[in-house]
């Protein structure tokens, strides 16, 4: 069991504040440009919607050098009339504390959760520090279901550009939904509302020093909440507009951390996901409205080129990870150029590729870092195919496509269950004829004996 060891600064702050009703956590690293706006929104949100509660804003910083901490402490609201508040504007505690441990969002969250626990907060909300579209209402939407309706976990629900959130749309949402049976649309959204009960559960976990310390934190929080039976809901927050992430950030590292966390948790909660079938909607709060979204330019050619390179160079890895039929299908796609207009990664193939990787991860085939990073070209192929397929579609039609993919994942769950505990069919030069056919779910599950 992990113990709660607060850094000295945080301990002093807790001793000074003593207790709080609500804690708002903002992880940051060099976000001086946007964090002031986020802190202001939090201050107004607390004053406007929870005027009777004691609120603390905790900025958990990863050693910023651009004045992020100063921006947090300087963010203040002098003009209550401008904000149309009927209640007097009390100052909210604002703290900017450096976290310790592995640099990453997860480590920043750990400090926030420990602080919330020590301050005996009734609810905690966490939001990203690079948000441009955040409003005070977000805090109401994230905290009210916890404080007044008894929910433990409030996931965000936003409108996003059709090409935004591709890891969510192509892997994390369909897989999480198929596994645990809850339709949480943005499982790695970044903004969450949490109850004390759930915070306690997070804090005592002993896997904080894994990928959870980095980008794996969001899916880790969501999965634990769903798999362990906490009360889960969603709140509609409008649009999510944020600064571009660190341009130096490596896609394969992000993919590795997020997908690695999903796969690792699949092993821990095997009994849970094996017992669940289909999926059910999750309660959605908030008034839904349409919003304008920043366009996202996409270079499809570059993604297909990356995939084809992967086909040429990584076959030796894919051949030991993928089922023979899937491997040959992927290889065939590698020979199709975009000009031929035949480049298309079908839902069925993509689903089985992801499931093959999950099984390889479980069975310890190859080193896990290499395995997960070798998924990058395949992921880019799927994204390129998705972009080409949805180029002329409006967001509701795109959502329908994502729904189809989710259903495909759900229908292929018997394939995953069958593959999970057994070794893959070895790849031969030609696609082998399946030796056995097992009917399970909508599509038949074909595996060689």
């Amino acid at each position, binding site marked *: 069991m992990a113990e709660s060891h607060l850094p000295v600064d945080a301990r002093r702050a807790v001793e000074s504040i003593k207790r709080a009703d609500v804690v708002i956590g903002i992880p940051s690293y060099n976000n001086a440009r946007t964090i002031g706006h986020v802190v202001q929104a939090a201050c107004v949100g607390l004053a406007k919607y929870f005027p009777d509660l004691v609120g603390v804003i905790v900025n958990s910083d990863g050693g910023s050098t651009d004045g992020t901490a100063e921006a947090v402490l300087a963010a203040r609201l002098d003009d209550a009339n401008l904000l149309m508040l009927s209640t007097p504007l009390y100052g909210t505690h604002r703290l900017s504390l450096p976290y310790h441990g592995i640099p990453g969002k997860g480590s920043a969250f750990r400090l926030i959760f420990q602080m919330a626990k020590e301050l005996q907060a009734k609810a905690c909300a966490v939001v990203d520090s690079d948000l441009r579209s955040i409003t005070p209402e977000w805090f109401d939407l994230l905290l009210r279901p916890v404080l007044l309706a008894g929910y433990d976990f409030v996931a965000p629900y936003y409108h996003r550009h059709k*090409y*935004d*959130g*591709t*890891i*969510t749309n192509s892997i994390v949402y369909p897989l999480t939904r198929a596994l645990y049976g809850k339709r949480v649309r943005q499982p*790695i959204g970044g903004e969450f509302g949490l109850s004390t009960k759930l915070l306690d559960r997070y804090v005592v976990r002993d896997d904080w020093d894994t990928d959870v310390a980095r*980008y794996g934190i969001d899916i880790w929080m969501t999965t634990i909440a769903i798999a362990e039976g906490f009360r889960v809901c969603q709140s509609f927050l409008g649009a999510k507009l944020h600064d*571009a*992430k*660190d*341009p*130096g*950030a*490596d*896609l*394969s590292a*992000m993919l590795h951390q*997020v997908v690695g966390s999903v796969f690792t948790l699949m092993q821990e909660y095997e009994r849970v996901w094996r017992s669940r079938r289909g999926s059910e909607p999750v309660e959605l709060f908030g008034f839904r409205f349409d919003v304008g979204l920043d366009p*996202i*330019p*996409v*270079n499809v050619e*570059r993604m297909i080129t*990356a995939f084809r*390179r*992967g086909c040429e*160079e*990584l076959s*030796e*890895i894919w051949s*030991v990870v993928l089922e023979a039929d899937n491997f040959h299908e992927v290889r065939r796609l590698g020979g199709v150029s975009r000009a031929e207009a035949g480049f298309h990664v079908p839902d069925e193939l993509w689903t089985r590729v992801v499931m093959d990787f999950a099984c390889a991860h479980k*069975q*310890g*085939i*190859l*080193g*896990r*870092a*290499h395995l997960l*990073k*070798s998924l*990058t*070209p395949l992921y880019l192929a799927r*994204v390129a195919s998705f972009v080409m397929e949805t180029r002329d579609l409006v967001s509701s039609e795109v959502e329908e496509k994502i729904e189809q993919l989710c259903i495909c994942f759900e229908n292929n769950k018997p394939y995953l269950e069958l593959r999970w505990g057994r070794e893959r069919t*070895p790849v031969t030069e030609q696609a082998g004829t399946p030796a056995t056919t097992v009917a399970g779910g909508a599509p038949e599950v074909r595996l060689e004996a």
Partner: protein
Amino acid sequence: MLETMQQILQGVLERLRYQMITYLPPLMAAAITLLGAYLIALLARWMLYRIFKGITIDRFLRRSGLAFMFDRSGRLRATRLAAEGAYWLILLAGFLLGLSVFNTDLTTQMTQRFVLLLPKLVVAGLILVAGAWLAQYLGRGTLVWAVNEGLPSPRKMAATVRLVIMFVAVVVAADHLDFARNVFLAAFIILLGAGALAVSLALGLGGREAVKRYFQEKSESGRDESERSLWNHL
């Protein structure tokens, strides 16, 4: 005349009898020892295949890539390694025991030398296996990294990494065995120098423009934020 021939024949038969009395029993003993060792080796291998469950080692073999290095299908298992290892070890012990039955200076010397060399051979073997594991791991890491970074010739880069690490492992193993130490050391230094020279020449003469173009493209794509934007959205 007849008597002389009879004496000669008797002498031959006497020598043959003497040689048979002297050498046949140890030869038969050696053969029996070897046969016994062979049977024990077979039995040990059969038992290990059925009894030994090396799950942890299996996982190590798969994750390290050693399973794929020794067997392309990746189905090398600890059970097989242990069984084959025991089989050959027992066979070797039987062979040495068989040799010692002759009790001659030569066989005794051979046995002694081999027994003295055995620990060194085992350590050298372990060095080679460790080198192979490291070569496989780093080679595969290089391959995946180079593909994801879009670097030219990823497979050649990975092969070079594997080759260099294996070569270093062979040099260290040879050094440990005191086997052609100077030859390997000289070869290592020469190859290292030649490699550095080749890279310098290649970059200086042929590849200068290509490298310049590559880095230019990299810096441009880094500046073109919009192009990377999709990659940065989870």
